[in-house]
């Protein structure tokens, strides 16, 4: 008998709607999986058993009535803990928000609730989403389900680990420089960053506002589409929300790649990419060509500067976004004789080293006399990157590359070298700077048994073709392995 925690989202949807199981049973299976794996993985910061139980009962009632239900009704979903949830502790993995109970729900949380999904709990992340390993959490490191000595990637590491191991059927993450795609790659699942503005950021605790985007982490491409369908769409509460029509995410899923023009980004291959990752990506490109795609190599020369531009823009925005954490209205407070001292003591105590470092970097990059050389120049480089993308998309329909230059690295391996850690995002950052969609699909394992992710990038609002290619990649790869931890079944 199949453990329900091993079902994909689509399988679970059919099971629930076909009356083969209940949402309560599904939730119980997910809870059992969490109980078995959390001690090793620490994917969750907070599992909301009572809230989820209520939602599951409500879902069963809706399913039983034969009323119109959504594909997500009764589906257990995990939320990265930088999405605010009313009355449910939201910490961003930071000490500065310990115990914080938001008085409102993020727009995406509201949409998931309306769709009838069951919110399992809040997942671990690098503090304020700053990091690529989930080691920068004030509440402990999450681990990779394929090998708990390794990181799950980050910053949505908890969400990726939970979906990979089956302690949620889907999860939401946020992607500022690759924080959905890179952990999905390292955990062997599908992670998708939509076009900037397609999913409302209202209620996402901001890291870098012009780069942040919420997206799904799922086991399959189809599941990614299903979750995104529930999330996407105009939100008047977010001025940067896309007001026009939402692309048809599903239309291309069965279409194959015959006749599509696929560009391999030369700047994201070769140097700096692990040879096994490089080989797996090359094999997939060859297969796509075999399926009728026209493959060309495309050069986007300004990509070389993307990481540098990112490490000016993201810290600059973060330095302002995180100014509100000051001990006045919510969260941690450390005493001081004056309000100035109180704020400075609170912030020094409440923020971890990576967050502190980025606030300092951003403050410096914006300060008088340096703005033009740093932040201003980074913004002009951003324009050049957009121009490169534009001209590339004049020649090809999608761009492909590895998602991460390496597979999951060991816990602690890059912890003391910020630059080495920042290199983890070299392939994903350009799409954040351009606001374009990107997706990571697992295509195999390396010699150490660690997953390799294949990245597909598309132009703004090009989700239809993005999913079209991703589905074909998934079909060709036929990646069905599960991490060992997921197989540690409960005896029934």
């Amino acid at each position: 008998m199949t453990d329900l925690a091993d079902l994909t989202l689509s399988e679970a949807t059919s099971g629930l709607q076909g009356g083969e199981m209940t949402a309560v049973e599904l939730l119980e299976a997910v809870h059992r999986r969490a109980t078995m794996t959390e001690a090793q993985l620490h994917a969750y910061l907070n599992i909301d058993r009572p809230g989820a139980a209520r939602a599951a009962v409500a879902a069963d009632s809706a399913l039983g009535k034969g009323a119109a239900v959504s594909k997500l009704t009764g589906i257990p979903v995990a939320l990265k803990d930088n999405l605010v949830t009313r009355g449910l502790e939201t910490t961003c993995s930071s000490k500065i928000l310990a115990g914080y109970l938001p008085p409102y729900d993020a727009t995406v949380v509201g949409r998931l609730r309306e769709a009838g999904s069951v919110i399992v709990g809040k997942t671990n992340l690098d503090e304020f989403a700053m990091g690529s390993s989930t080691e920068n959490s004030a509440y402990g490191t999450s681990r990779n389900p394929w090998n708990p000595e390794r990181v799950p990637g980050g910053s949505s590491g908890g969400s990726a680990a939970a979906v990979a191991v089956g302690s949620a059927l889907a999860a939401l993450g946020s992607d500022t420089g690759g924080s959905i795609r890179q952990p999905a790659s390292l955990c062997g699942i599908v992670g998708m960053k939509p076009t900037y503005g397609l999913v409302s950021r209202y209620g996402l605790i901001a890291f870098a506002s012009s780069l942040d985007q919420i997206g799904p982490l799922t086991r399959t491409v189809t599941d990614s589409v299903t979750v995104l369908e529930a999330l996407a769409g105009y939100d008047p509460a977010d001025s940067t929300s896309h007001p026009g029509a939402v692309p048809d995410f599903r239309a291309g899923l069965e279409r194959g790649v015959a006749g599509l023009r696929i560009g391999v980004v030369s700047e994201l291959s070769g140097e700096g990419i692990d040879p096994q990752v490089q080989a797996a990506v090359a094999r997939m490109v060859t297969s796509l060509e075999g399926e009728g795609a026209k493959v060309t190599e495309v050069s986007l020369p300004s990509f070389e500067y993307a990481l540098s531009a990112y490490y000016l823009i993201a810290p600059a925005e973060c330095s302002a976004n995180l100014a509100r954490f000051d001990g006045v209205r919510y969260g941690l407070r450390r005493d001081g004789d004056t309000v100035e001292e109180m704020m400075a003591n609170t912030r020094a105590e409440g923020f971890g080293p990576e967050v502190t470092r980025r606030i300092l970097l951003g403050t410096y990059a914006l300060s008088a006399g340096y703005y033009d050389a740093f932040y201003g120049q980074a913004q002009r480089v951003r324009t050049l990157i957009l121009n490169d993308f534009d001209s590339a998309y004049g020649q090809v329909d999608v761009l492909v590359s590895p998602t991460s230059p390496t597979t999951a690295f060991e816990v602690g391996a890059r912890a003391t070298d910020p630059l080495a850690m920042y290199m983890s995002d070299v392939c994903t950052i350009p799409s954040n700077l351009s606001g374009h969609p990107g997706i990571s699909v697992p295509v195999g394992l390396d010699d150490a048994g660690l997953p390799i992710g294949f990245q597909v990038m598309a132009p703004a609002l090009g989700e239809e073709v993005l999913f079209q290619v991703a589905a074909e990649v998934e079909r060709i790869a036929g990646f069905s392995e599960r991490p060992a931890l997921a197989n540690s079944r409960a005896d029934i």
Partner: protein
Amino acid sequence: MPIDIDIAKVARLARLALSDEELDLYRAQCEVVLEHAALVQALPTEGVEPTSHPLRRTNAFREDVVTECLDTEEVLAQAPDRDGNYFRVPPILEEP
């Protein structure tokens, strides 16, 4: 490009009460990152408009309509310190 950060000033601007040892460490780390980030300066960008936003959108407005406010009690329940319906903080030394 060699970077020389007045880290104590930056920390004051950012309201971070850091020890001298911490300041030394962060200065060294920030300088390494900034030296890398300063590579952007190598790219000729004369006449290039800055992009502050991936969207080329304008005029996102809301109508001037009053909507519901939060419950004061729910808001103040999160306050580290309060006095009745006010948030309470230590005395302010500097003026804006």
